[in-house]
């Protein structure tokens, strides 16, 4: 990282967005960092995890050697099924997505812009791309949360004024969690809502590529347990 700051672990990032899930929500987790959201302890809340490949109501990863070879989540990981589980085919699975029945999708991203655009399917200069279900999810989920690193490996900001690589969807992002803090996309722009412990507002501002709305009070990122 450009300034040596570490901030939140990936699990802490995912725990923080998972706190936002409400009882009964249908949740779709993207490949990569977001999959860690399913490790959060939801307590009394019933969260229904939906995967693009038609699995509704999947549970924790299986232990090594106990994998069901007929069952993976959208990331290809072997998972278990919760009692409420049901299986549908790919067209019905994306029917659930497009008809607005995913309460939130948490996706990884290369870039997010202050206007709610984001990019996660094509790296700069790449031929082809990896869209998977991201464009359907981004266009149709009731809420789009991103879980991503604050900066690139070279230290360049991933939170930017306008996306510089091809976008996945426009104006759809609600919340962004990075290792540096929790950001909200508002009609006025990107607002810092919570900051990672040990980081200063100046550090966050310096690693953000767009104007950042900073309220008078920025509490630390909420943690639990």
């Amino acid at each position, binding site marked *: 990282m450009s300034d040596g700051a570490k901030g939140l672990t990936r699990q802490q990032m995912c725990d923080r967005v998972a706190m936002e899930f409400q009882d009964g929500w249908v949740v779709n987790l993207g490949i990569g960092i977001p999959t860690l959201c399913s490790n959060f302890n939801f307590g009394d809340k019933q969260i229904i995890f939906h995967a693009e490949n038609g699995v509704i109501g999947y549970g924790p990863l299986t232990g090594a050697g106990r994998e069901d070879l007929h069952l993976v989540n959208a990331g290809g990981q072997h998972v278990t099924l919760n009692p409420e589980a049901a299986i549908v085919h790919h067209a019905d699975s994306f029917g659930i997505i497009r008809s607005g029945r995913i309460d939130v999708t948490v996706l990884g991203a290369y870039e997010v812009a202050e206007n709610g655009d984001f990019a996660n399917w094509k790296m700069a200069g790449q031929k*082809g791309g990896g869209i998977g279900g991201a464009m359907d999810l981004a266009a149709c989920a009731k809420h789009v949360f991103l879980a991503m690193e604050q900066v690139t490996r070279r230290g360049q900001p991933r939170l930017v004024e306008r996306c510089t690589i091809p976008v996945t969807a426009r104006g759809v992002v609600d919340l962004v969690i990075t290792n540096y803090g929790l950001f909200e996309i508002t009609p006025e722009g990107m607002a810092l809502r919570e900051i990672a412990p040990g980081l200063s507002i100046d550090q966050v501002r310096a690693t953000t590529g767009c104007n950042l709305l900073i309220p008078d009070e920025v509490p630390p990122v909420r943690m639990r347990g």
Partner: protein
Amino acid sequence: MSKSKIYPSFADAVADIPDGSTIGFGGFAVVGMPINLYEALSKQGAKGLTCVSNGTRGGSTMPSDAPTMEWLIRNDQVKKVICSFTAPTRASQKLVFSEYYEKGLIDAELVPQGTLAERMRAAGAGIPAFYTPAAVGTELAEGRETRVFNGREYLLEEALPLDYAFIRAYQADAFGNLRFRRSQRNFNPLMAMAARVTIVEVEEDILPVGAIDPDDVHLPGIFVHRMVKIPPPPEGWWPQRPAEIAKLEADRNAR
């Protein structure tokens, strides 16, 4: 009585596939992938194929020497792919497909996964075109027709009919009624519905007609034309647990 749909071997089942066919390959991250049919088609050798699948290879829970679309690509059988992934998702990953694509040896049409599924569902349902919200405002929609319904912009997408569907199922009866297990269902029934000819590799012994309750059929036999029971390994290909794959590869390296 109608001709039997049960074929003695994968070679027989794919023998007549002509050059230039459009073939859908089911499966998602290994589960439900027609790995035995990939092998048979690579031996059969049909060229100029358009291959429709979620991606150009399987997931990690398959022995690294198991057949995937990469066998067809390496064999110069593939003219074009239609997929939701045409690049690796991590910079560290390398796809066989990418070598050929970057050299311009293979064409690619990149389609959002839901649109890919729905285009085949449309073909199977006699719907020539439909509108979808996915990809609106992106590079994929550039220069293409969009339309506003109830204040929202949608992209026009056309049906994607297939000449052949290559799929894998858990259970079948002799009429071709199929059941898939868990996430094995994925694209498989859709591809069968989109195809003129559906060829199935079946995991369990093929059951007598009537053995599957009509309420429990996932894909009616009227969509199924050819079936082959997958032989036990090593003759037939089966996915394996990560630990087993690691062991297989260690054994191979030790040799």
